[in-house]
């Protein structure tokens, strides 16, 4: 774009003019057209695959719509039904618990591992790869690995515990332990991602700050608390937003590991929406649930964004 503007300015100069109203308008319109041309493909993709389905979901959420056949406008009926559905509220609580359990854990562990692997540790690249590996596997593959690990009768975890004389937890039939198994697999998957992002963030921390801190008598923990943590705050913000969105969207793990059970103990909002939208073929009701999920994530992200922007501008 810069070169295009430059060419336009040179032409204006050759004609001996420096900005009549007409040339300014022409320049602006060319610049605008070029901007649209550059943004066009992405805008089209976003409109086609994001905004259009979103609008469609909004439309469906106000209708009695199955998978096939005609639909009927029912106003707020789907929302009224949803807010009076006990399982919906349990799904809200489950999603919140899952998010609170996974986001801080995977971020803190990721930061710890990043600091560790940023130092002079032997075989750094091997460790980084091993820790990062789960994130490149498909969600369903990791979920199946999770199923093998946490099957409570013949699963690997309980077999190992039994080998050392410990009776393993009821991973599949106790609600709290079933949720714990989802959290553990999620943290295992996500910690590598957090670690890699933090490793990049740590490169932006000036080394002389550590030197100055050491001269002031700061120990390793104080350097971490007073230098590292504040200076990677933008990275932390980025990870919090991404992880919260990920946690609110957890589906494949629930689908493959617990099927929402036992009872409804691990039924999360995306799984609840899927059950109605696809398994039960009530796409109107499923869309309403999905829309509430969308609004919650949107509101949370906006809140985080505003809060973080203020903090960063205020001087981290």
């Amino acid at each position, binding site marked *: 774009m810069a070169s295009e503007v430059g060419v336009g300015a040179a032409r204006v100069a050759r004609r001996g003019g420096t900005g009549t109203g007409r040339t300014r308008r022409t320049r602006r319109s060319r610049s605008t057209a070029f901007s649209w041309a550059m943004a066009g493909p992405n805008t089209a993709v976003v409109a086609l695959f994001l905004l259009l389905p979103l609008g469609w979901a909004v439309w469906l959420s106000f209708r009695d719509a*199955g*998978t*096939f*056949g005609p639909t009927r406008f029912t106003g707020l009926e789907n929302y009224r039904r949803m807010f009076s559905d006990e*399982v919906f509220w349990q799904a809200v609580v489950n999603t919140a618990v899952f998010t609170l359990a996974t986001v801080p854990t995977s971020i803190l562990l990721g930061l710890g591992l990043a600091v560790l692997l940023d130092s002079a540790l032997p075989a750094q690249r091997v460790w980084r790869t091993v820790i990062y590996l789960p994130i490149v596997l498909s969600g369903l593959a990791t979920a199946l690995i999770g*199923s093998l690990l946490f*099957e*409570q*009768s*013949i699963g690997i975890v309980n077999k190992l515990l039994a080998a050392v004389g410990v009776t393993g937890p*009821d*991973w*599949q*039939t106790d609600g709290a332990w079933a949720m714990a198994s989802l959290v553990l697999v999620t943290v295992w998957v996500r910690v590598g991602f957090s670690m890699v992002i933090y490793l990049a963030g740590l490169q932006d921390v000036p080394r002389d700050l550590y030197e100055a801190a050491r001269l002031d008598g700061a120990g390793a923990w104080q350097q971490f608390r007073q230098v590292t943590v504040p200076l990677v705050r933008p990275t932390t913000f980025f990870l919090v937003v991404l992880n919260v969105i990920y946690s609110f969207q957890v589906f494949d793990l629930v689908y*493959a*590991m*617990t*099927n*929402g*059970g*036992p*009872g*409804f103990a691990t039924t999360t909002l995306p799984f609840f929406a899927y*059950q109605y939208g*696809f*398994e*039960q*073929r*009530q796409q109107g009701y499923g869309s309403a649930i999905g829309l509430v999920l969308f609004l919650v994530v949107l509101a949370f992200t906006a809140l985080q964004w505003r809060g973080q922007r203020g903090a960063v501008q205020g001087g981290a």
Partner: protein
Amino acid sequence: MTAGGWLSGCAGLTGGGSGGGGGGRPGTLSVITWASDAEAAVFRDLADRFGSENDVTVDLQVIPFEEVQTTVDAQLQAGDPPDVFRVTYTDLGRYSTTGQLLDVTPYVDDAAAFIPAFWQAVQTDGTPYGVPHHTDTTAIVYRPDLLQPAGITVPTSLDEAWSWEEFAEVSDALKASLPQGVFPFVYDWQQFGAYRWLTWLFEAGGRLLDDDLATAVVQSPEGLKALEFTQRFFTEQWVPRNTSVKSTTYPDAAFIGERTAMAFVGDFLLPGIEAEVDFDYQATFQPRDVRASSDLGGNALVATAESANAELAGEFLRFMVTEDAMTEWCARTTELPTLQSLVGQDLGYEVRPDLMPVFVEQATTLTEEDVAQVTVPAFSQVNTVLLDQLELAFLGDQSAEDTLAAIAEGVDAAIAG
């Protein structure tokens, strides 16, 4: 009509757009199915044979069972459906009542050739929207080495099947004799199989729906008896606790993993079990109460109304239920035929042919009344209601009465649409 006659009816097909406005390629028949390894192999062979005999290409897409419904639904919604797909009898009504399926009347030469219950299962308001491809049913496989030490003798005929009381005594005896961590049995009601709980309801003489198939009647003494008995599976620890209806642990896995002495399994699971275990196992009949019963297993093949190759699709269905094709299918998959002419015949089962008579006889306990209740258009929603509520009754503290009330409420809502 003989198999040869049916086959000759297929002769001379060239494929090509004889049908509606779907997106299929002329001369290519698109088929979507799920399949076990054994099923996939025979499905491919039969599809290739149909293709070579008719000079067409059969594009067979094998996808996991859990993904079939969403895949087919999405393609139907997008107006680009497969020409043919495999569907459970319990889900067929959802498609047929919404105009998604081809009326296959022209492609069925002799409706009376099918076992009536399965012919009924593919009809909606008297119109056939598919062909009953095969059936399967549940029986008990057991380990003699674990039953004999407990002094248990096993029924050898349907008439001698254990009563519920006897089955409870057997389970108690096994519980007392089995090593720690091994359970008396496991039942096959996980996930999409939640409806198999109805076998106990039917055995007790109960019904899920009334005669008009419009209202739930599960809140009955028979319903209470069935639910309280099946709750005992968990309270008495006759089954591993992690094999409830929402579990991802299936009965064949528990049996193969030597966690149970007996397993209620469909005959289609025998090839997988046979390949994995190195202990002896035999088969016997499901327990009976007021009557014997079983579940409506197996699947139909259907063609889509919008198929661009409707005629070719219809002929493919005709081919797949010829005596020859059905015999080969059943022999290689250890599944049961739906043609009356093949019932009682030696089909040459490739895996454990000695056990198959038990499954064949067990399948005869399914009545047309049972079939009608599990093939209502909303049955996939009914199955979800059973899944949710039975889980609460088995693993939660929901009482039998409350569970039946919740099932009745959910089923009524599903039926009402």
